[in-house]
């Protein structure tokens, strides 16, 4: 059958001139707002999530600044509670969950498949606008008194406190549907739009990670949706489901919440791991060791993530039997995580590593993910968790996974695909310096927090005892270093748009499928329909022409 052709014009004809990039094919603001092109939608997501990232990052800087001295530094306790809640809610629901899948994923996924677009382009645009609507509710809440519940919205506090809780919860509820629809879209795209020859065993590991993430988005997010809906009904109509005065159970809320929010942690980390696969393969020119083990471990993480939610509740009064079961199940997570780390390390072993800026982020990911993952074991152990629960140890642990791993991988991916996305090269020398600033700043913020937590500093507190002052100050100084690096990185990207050199087709000499397209790609991604005859990391099979820059 001639379904697969190498003749561009054969398909319905008229769709996209292969010599005009997707950025030039149409101009004007409306051509962006109503676009169905996955690449443009990916960029709209990228701009949106980065905006919220900067906003929530500034909130974090304010939190750290307040903690510079015991007692009041710059704000009163009520404001402090609102600021750290905003930091958490915006970072989780408006930045990190959509960050990699919806921005980089949207851009790269169809290209890695050799496809022209995602399966449902209109649904893709709808997802974006649902996300924007959710963000509007969050902003509405922000200007109407904000929320002081923490990002977890625990009842009964969240149903009784002042502030615009319903608007904020509504924002998270709506943003959740954006996540669900994106997940549906990606699952179908991976199933139905693979180029000829792109068998499952040749699927790039980035897509395996996005696939596992999408399954989680589709199956976990609706549970959060119903939980938040019940919370809104509880607050607005007093239906009593989580209210102990009426025979309701606040701990049930925690079960519901974590049934989503634990898998959500994997919605955040799996795409980060997925990017690291691509970076390590490209910058070592090697096949990822144990390809099969790595993608199975992604699916295993997705599965296990549904079985461990109650480890967030070891001290909430659930039965000791439940504690033991959930503790044991939590240790299982270490297995697929370890498989990944060992396979990445194995791939690096005796490799000739090109330490370009994206690869630096991947190496930092490995280092920081090990710290984040191993400290997770402390918390999975009931006896130590009782001591460490709700301390800065937990804060440091999940920031090592969320920021030290996911955000670093996101930055790495952004550097890696930037030439493909924009057609411009950024200043590589500056990018390396910026990396080191971010790396040093980041670790200065969070390493001391492990010590603080193990010495008993509770999380979320406005005030603290004098013996914690020095480590808090180290952490706050680190936040300034991190901020300098972060803003400089964004500036470096912006400068490249104006004055960066034109990017070649394949600046990293990668054998990945997406690099076969021009930089930036035309509307339908490839000049000719790709036909896949080798794996994405088969450097021994890739021709010189394929991995050449142009």
């Amino acid at each position, binding site marked *: 059958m001639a379904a697969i052709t190498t003749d561009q014009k054969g398909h319905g004809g008229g769709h996209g001139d292969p010599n005009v990039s997707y950025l030039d094919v149409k101009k004007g603001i409306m051509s962006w707002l109503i676009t169905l092109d996955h690449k443009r939608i990916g960029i709209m997501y990228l701009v949106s999530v980065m905006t919220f990232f900067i906003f929530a990052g500034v909130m974090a800087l304010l939190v750290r600044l307040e903690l510079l001295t015991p007692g009041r530094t710059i704000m009163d306790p009520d404001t402090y509670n609102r600021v750290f809640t905003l930091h958490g809610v915006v970072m989780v629901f408006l930045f990190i969950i959509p960050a990699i899948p919806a921005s980089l994923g949207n851009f790269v996924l169809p290209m890695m498949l050799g496809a022209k677009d995602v399966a449902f382009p209109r649904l893709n645009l709808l997802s974006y606008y649902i996300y924007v609507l959710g963000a509007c509710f969050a902003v509405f809440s922000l200007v109407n008194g904000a929320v002081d519940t923490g990002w977890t919205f625990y009842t009964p506090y969240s149903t009784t406190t002042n502030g615009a809780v319903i608007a904020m919860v509504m924002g998270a509820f709506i943003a959740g549907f954006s996540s669900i629809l994106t997940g549906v879209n990606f699952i179908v795209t991976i199933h139905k739009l693979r180029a000829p020859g792109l068998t499952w065993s040749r699927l790039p590991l980035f897509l395996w990670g996005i696939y596992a993430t999408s399954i989680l988005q589709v199956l976990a997010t609706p549970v959060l949706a119903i939980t938040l809906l019940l919370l809104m009904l509880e607050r607005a109509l007093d239906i009593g489901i989580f209210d102990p005065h009426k025979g309701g159970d606040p701990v049930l809320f925690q*079960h519901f919440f974590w049934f989503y929010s634990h898998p959500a942690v994997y919605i955040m980390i799996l795409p980060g791991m997925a990017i690291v696969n691509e970076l390590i393969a490209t910058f070592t020119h090697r096949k990822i060791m144990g390809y099969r083990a790595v993608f199975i471990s992604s699916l295993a993480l997705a599965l296990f993530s549904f079985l461990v939610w109650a480890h967030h509740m070891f001290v909430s009064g659930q039965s000791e039997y439940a504690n033991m079961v959930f503790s044991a199940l939590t240790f299982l997570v270490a297995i697929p995580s370890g498989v990944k780390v060992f396979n990445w390390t194995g791939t690096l072993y005796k490799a000739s590593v090109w330490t370009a800026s994206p690869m630096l982020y991947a190496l930092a990911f490995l280092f920081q993910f090990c710290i984040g993952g191993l400290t997770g074991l402390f918390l999975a152990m009931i006896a130590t968790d009782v001591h460490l629960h709700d301390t800065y140890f937990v804060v440091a642990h999940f920031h090592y996974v969320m920021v030290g791993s996911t955000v670093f991988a996101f930055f790495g991916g952004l550097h890696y695909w930037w030439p493909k996305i924009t057609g411009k090269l950024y200043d590589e020398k500056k990018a390396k310096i910026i990396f080191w600033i971010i790396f040093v700043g980041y670790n200065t913020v969070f390493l001391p927090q492990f010590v603080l937590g193990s010495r008993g500093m509770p999380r979320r507190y406005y005030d603290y005892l004098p013996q914690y002052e020095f480590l808090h100050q180290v952490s706050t100084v680190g936040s300034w270093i991190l901020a300098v690096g972060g803003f400089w990185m964004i500036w470096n990207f912006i400068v490249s748009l104006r004055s960066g050199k034109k990017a070649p087709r394949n600046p990293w000499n990668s054998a990945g499928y997406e690099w076969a397209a021009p930089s930036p790609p035309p509307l339908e991604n490839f000049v000719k329909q790709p036909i896949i005859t080798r794996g994405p990391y088969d450097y021994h099979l890739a021709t010189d022409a394929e991995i050449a820059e142009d």
Partner: protein
Amino acid sequence: MTDTTATADTEHEEHEGHEEHHGDHPKWLQHHWDTPAQQFDAAKIGMWAFLGQELLFFSGLFVAYAVYRTWYGEAFAAGSHELNRTMGTINTCVLLFSSLTAALAVRASQLGKKSETTVMILVTIACAFTFLVIKYFEYEAKFHHGLLPGSFFGTPRDMLTFQPIPGAHSPASELPDHTHAFFSLYFVMTGLHAIHVIIGIGVWIWILRRNLRGDFSSRYFTPVDVTALYWHLVDLIWIYLYPLFYLIDYVPPGHRGG
């Protein structure tokens, strides 16, 4: 892969079917698909994934139901006896029948019988409206008897104005403690289900319009098919809601078994 690659993938070829010749690109086939079969399969998988999402959406409520019924079994049985079993049963039949007509609409559209498709969709929509009307009268009776969620429990109210009705009798005081929890879940779960029915009606009307416009044929009936899938799920959820709310009883511990 432009330079190296040569072999076409046979698995892919078999999978996508042979019915479309290259260059024959009907207007309903979006540009990024190669074949109608591929587009149809994608829509199906997408809808199934979405239905998985719907199931998980309701699952939280079923868990809450299980928890509170375990704790307050007597109250749940008492609350259940306040519901109108006749109306619930009629509604179950109406919805099951509408699922049949939805399936027949798909069949008719697969065979290219446009007017039969129209009739079947119309019957489905009529059933959906019947369901909602019956549900409205049920809700109204509950409002009138003050059988309402949470803190509204015990105060008879007018359903449309939500004002208390002075002098109206409420059986609430004779019911066991925590019966309000039963009605919280009753209203939330049947209410969310009713919202799904209303959305379903909207989608069916859109499908009806497209059918009348002549969008569908024996080669392209995907929207009818996936809408029917959604409609079966709405039906399926009701099949669980019906016994859990209308048909339950309470046997105290010690009287159970054998």
